[in-house]
């Protein structure tokens, strides 16, 4: 088991970042996400919006991991639960893979909040727990996966920036990009 975490700052207010985060896919940085579905969505009694989504991904496992695990590139499904609290200005998102779970589990948690000292920028804290199961090289593989997480985190930040810039430049509602 390996814990991975990072922090990123977006130079945009929280509302702008959250709008982009909700419409993050498709984007050119994450071509591996081939489908996104909303499974359930509701407002709770505190006025927070809960969304359960299913992400269909062509998971880019590092080649050596594929070789050792003996799995080919295949569609992997990820289930995601997000909560947007418009009053507290907080978006929290947890995701976990629901296929290949006999081989690996990647549990990720992202939290978007305004910067405590500068409301014009947004802080994203991101952490993941990676567990590779049933192989003797598991700690080595978990290290490789952590490296892959870092590369993917960078793509995720770029994706949010891309969504924001594209929506503002073209001045079209982002939903039309979906």
């Amino acid at each position, binding site marked *: 088991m390996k814990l991975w975490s990072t922090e990123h700052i977006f130079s945009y207010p929280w509302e702008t970042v959250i709008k982009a985060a909700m419409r993050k896919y498709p984007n050119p940085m994450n071509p591996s996400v081939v489908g996104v*579905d909303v499974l359930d*969505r509701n*407002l709770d009694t505190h006025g927070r919006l809960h969304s359960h989504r299913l992400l269909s991904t062509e998971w880019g496992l590092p080649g050596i991991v594929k070789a050792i695990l003996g799995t080919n590139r295949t569609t992997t499904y990820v289930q995601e*639960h997000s909560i947007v609290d418009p009053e507290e200005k907080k978006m929290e998102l947890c995701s976990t893979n629901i296929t290949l779970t006999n081989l690996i589990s990647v549990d990720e948690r992202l939290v978007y909040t305004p910067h405590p000292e500068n409301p014009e920028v947004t802080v994203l804290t991101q952490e993941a727990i990676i567990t590779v199961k049933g192989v003797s090289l598991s700690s080595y593989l978990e290290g490789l996966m952590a490296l892959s997480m870092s590369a993917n985190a960078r793509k995720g930040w770029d994706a949010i920036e891309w969504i924001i810039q594209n929506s503002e430049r073209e001045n079209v*509602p982002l939903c039309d990009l979906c």
Partner: protein
Amino acid sequence: MNSVGEGCTELKREYDQCFNRWFAEKFLKGDRSADPCSELFHKYHTCVQKAIKEKDIPIEGVEFMGPSREKPDS
């Protein structure tokens, strides 16, 4: 963006468009009223549920999720 069910993508697009507008123009601006997209969601949801069953995707508890469900430990 595609849906997991090939035939659901158009229904998803219509729902997403409705939801995204409500999310940006009402919800984030403090309007507490529910989104006006429930009819579109119902059609889309029915289609996706069928696709999930056909593809045998192991979703946990989707049928039972409701407003009272607490968030999972994180």
